[in-house]
């Protein structure tokens, strides 16, 4: 981490929590946890609320679909930490029914419905080019996505365009696959609270 305060500037109680996490999971505390727990009233708590509602709140997108969107935004931003973190959650959520790694490389392949495919293309363009136009939205609507589904996808895109930027700016370390798996199990069971 490029700021020492994010590595070791937490309160005594938060440091005790980190020790508990390390003992229970036998994994290092992920840098994203260190970020949201540092002066959490400023960023961590209000941002976690937004992300929890986008990723686990009411939506006709499945949890797996939403984690795939998060991973796809990360892939577009080339954020290694977020790609691995949310690919792991999507894999678990889909229970192996979809090949997440292949879908991230090419959402045009078989395995997902047209509304999700068109939505992935749209949020990819929005992330890459910082803008989309009405024609882009008409394409997603014509593919069968509802207005609400598009709004839900834009909320996911918002969250992971924030988190990915912070991961790269603060230089999150990329831990082992076992650490990501432990994190994925937690996110699937408990969400982003």
């Amino acid at each position, binding site marked *: 981490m*490029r*700021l*020492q*305060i*994010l590595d070791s*500037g937490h309160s005594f109680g938060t440091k005790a929590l980190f020790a508990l996490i390390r003992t229970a999971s036998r994994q290092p505390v992920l840098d994203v946890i260190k970020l949201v727990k*540092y*002066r959490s*009233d*400023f*960023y961590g708590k*209000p*941002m976690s*609320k*937004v992300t929890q*509602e*986008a990723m686990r*709140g009411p939506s006709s997108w499945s949890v797996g679909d939403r984690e795939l969107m998060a991973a796809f935004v990360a892939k577009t*931003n*080339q*954020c290694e930490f977020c790609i691995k973190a949310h690919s792991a959650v999507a894999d678990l959520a889909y229970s192996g029914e979809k090949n997440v790694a292949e879908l991230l490389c090419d959402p045009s392949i078989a395995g997902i419905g047209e509304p999700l495919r068109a939505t992935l293309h*749209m949020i990819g363009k*929005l*992330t890459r080019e*910082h*803008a*989309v*136009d*009405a*024609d*882009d*939205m*008409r394409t997603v*609507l014509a593919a069968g996505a509802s*207005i609400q589904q*598009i*709004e839900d996808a*834009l*909320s996911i*895109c*918002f*969250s992971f*365009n*924030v988190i*990915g*930027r*912070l*991961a*790269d*700016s*603060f*230089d999150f370390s990329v831990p082992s696959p076992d650490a990501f798996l432990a994190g994925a199990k937690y996110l699937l069971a408990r969400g982003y609270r």
Partner: protein
Amino acid sequence: MSDIEQSRKALLRRVLDGDGRASSLERRSAFDNSGLVGPLCELVDKVASNARSVGEEDFRRARQSGLSEDQIFELVVCAAIGQATRQYDAARAALEAARRN
């Protein structure tokens, strides 16, 4: 307004108008990626436009300009949220235009 829209607005109010170590004006400038000068301007612009290009040197120069780590933390957070907000607002406007026509 949906719950998530309320939560998103609460996030923006907190980082821009709530208590902070950086001034409200600096946080707003980082959020807007506008009106900053020197090393902080470069750091904020990289966070907004291509966060992968941010390096140790950007943080070192921001510290050397007199900013504390807490101030840098807040301003980087505001820059990231600002860019994501501009993208979100542009997409919502495009969706509204598609819905009207």
